[in-house]
Each structure stands twice: as structure tokens, then as C-alpha cells.
């Protein structure tokens, strides 16, 4: 399973969204890496990619709202990381469509997404939780 309990931040809304994101990414990777032909999996891959484009933006927005609510000092830098990832996903999506759904491109995307997501949640997001806990505003009560 891709999700690990150590990734939990102690903020119910954000944790729930992270779990959903990991669940979707895991399902995406399973389809992407399955042994069936590309023609058989391309539709499922495309559906998941479309979902991710919307869900990632929604999650980043909620997470940024949370950072503002606790006065997280790394808000601007974290927002830039989110913006960079959204730009990458949108740019990739455009290239992928223009390539008429090239499998090599989406395999590259999948590899980067996997490593990026794990690092982002395990390292970058954890700093928000550390700050909130120190400040006594982790949101566990919510």
C-alpha cells in the first residue's frame, strides 16, 4: 500500500485528502503498470489523469487555506511548490494529448508523480504539522 500512517499530519481534512490522493495515485499506477496492452488501459489512465488534475488543485487550495489559518511562516514557499506541480501537470497533460496519448510520456509522468508525492507529503507537508503542533493549532479537534 502506498499510504503510510507516518504521513498523517493530524489535520483531519488534509489527512483525508492525502489518503484519497494516495489511493488514486496507487490505482493509477496499478493500471499504468498492468500487463495488459496500452490500448486496453489508455482509457482508464486518461480518466484518472483527468480526476487528478481537478483533485490536486482542490487539495492544494484546501491545504493552503489551512496554512493561512495557522499562520504557517512557510506559506509562500509552499504555495510556490504547489504552483510548480500544478504547472507541471497541466503542461504534461497538454503534451500528452498532443502526442495522442503516448505511453512513454505517461510512464515518465507516473515515475515523477510517485517520487514527488511521497517527498511532498512526508517532508514538506510534515513541516506544516510540526509548526501547527508547536503552536498548539494542529486542528485535531476539527
Amino acid at each position: 500500500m502506498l499510504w503510510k500512517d507516518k504521513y498523517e499530519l493530524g489535520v483531519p481534512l488534509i489527512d483525508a485528502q492525502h489518503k484519497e490522493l494516495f489511493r488514486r495515485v496507487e490505482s493509477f499506477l496499478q493500471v499504468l503498470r498492468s500487463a495488459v496492452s496500452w490500448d486496453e488501459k489508455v482509457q482508464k489512465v486518461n480518466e484518472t489523469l483527468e480526476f487528478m488534475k481537478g483533485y490536486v488543485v482542490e487539495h492544494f487550495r484546501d491545504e493552503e487555506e489551512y496554512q493561512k489559518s495557522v499562520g504557517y511562516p512557510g506559506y509562500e514557499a509552499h504555495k510556490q511548490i504547489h504552483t510548480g506541480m500544478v504547472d507541471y501537470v497541466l503542461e504534461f497533460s497538454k503534451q500528452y494529448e498532443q502526442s495522442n496519448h503516448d505511453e512513454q510520456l505517461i510512464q515518465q509522468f507516473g515515475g515523477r508523480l510517485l517520487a514527488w508525492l511521497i517527498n511532498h507529503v512526508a517532508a514538506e507537508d510534515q513541516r506544516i504539522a510540526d509548526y501547527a503542533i508547536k503552536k498548539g493549532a494542529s486542528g485535531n479537534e476539527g
Partner: protein
Amino acid sequence: MKDNLYKAFIDATQNVFNLMLNISEISDCPAGDFKCDDEVDIAIGVTGDLNGKVIYRFPVSTSLNMVNVMSGMQFDSVDAFVTSAISEIANIISGNVLSALSENDMDCDILPPVQCTLDDEKTYEIEASRCISTSIGEICLDIKLNRAA
């Protein structure tokens, strides 16, 4: 300078391996001990107060182990997915190093990772090559940097 820089890379690698792969024990040894016939080499360009590149040499077995641990899936050969995933890890380690350097007033930026070969014959002011050993395999780091004029 060379030792500090090298230590920053070791610390960043340890940190990233711990957080992303749940591997807390790493050790380093001279690059001469690094023996590998089949590897994936990823270069990260560096600009700013330091110029040049850092090459991460991942043996195929280490690359596959890293992606297997991250994904919980079984990868048996290096393909576009595996290369992209380990390139991102090289990018993350390098980003962590730059953050550490910026705390010492060293202002650098990194370029996107690219798969490379080891045939660069240029000489650099700061050259260091060390091997990092972990429970899922070794990695060799080639640091090739010049100070900005």
C-alpha cells in the same frame, strides 16, 4: 569547501532515504569501491555561486529497489517510469543540498534532471566522487563544480 559540500550531499541523501524509503542507515566510502557494470546516470546542473553539475550514478539494482520500496510494486527492469522516479529523487536530494547551502549564504539553483553519460573530460575546481552504501544498494555521487568568478 569540498568536504563541506560533500557532507551536505551525504546528509541530504540520508534525510531523503529516511523520509521516502524508510532507510535510516547509510554509510559512505571512497568511489574506488564502487563497482557497477549497469547503471543509470542522472545529472543535475547547478548554476549561481557554484556552476557545474552533480552526477548520481544509480546501479540498476539500486534503482529498481528504490522504486519497488516507494511504490510497493515489483519493477524488474529500468524503463521510463523508473528513470523518471530516480531522477526526481536526485532532484529532491539536490534541492535539499541547495537549501542547506543557502543557509551559509551560498546562492545556487538547479536545473531539471537529465539522463547522462560519464564522458565529460572537463576539469572542475571542486571535484569529489564518493560512494554511498545503503541496505538497498549503492549510489555513487560525482560532484563537478566551479566557483562563480
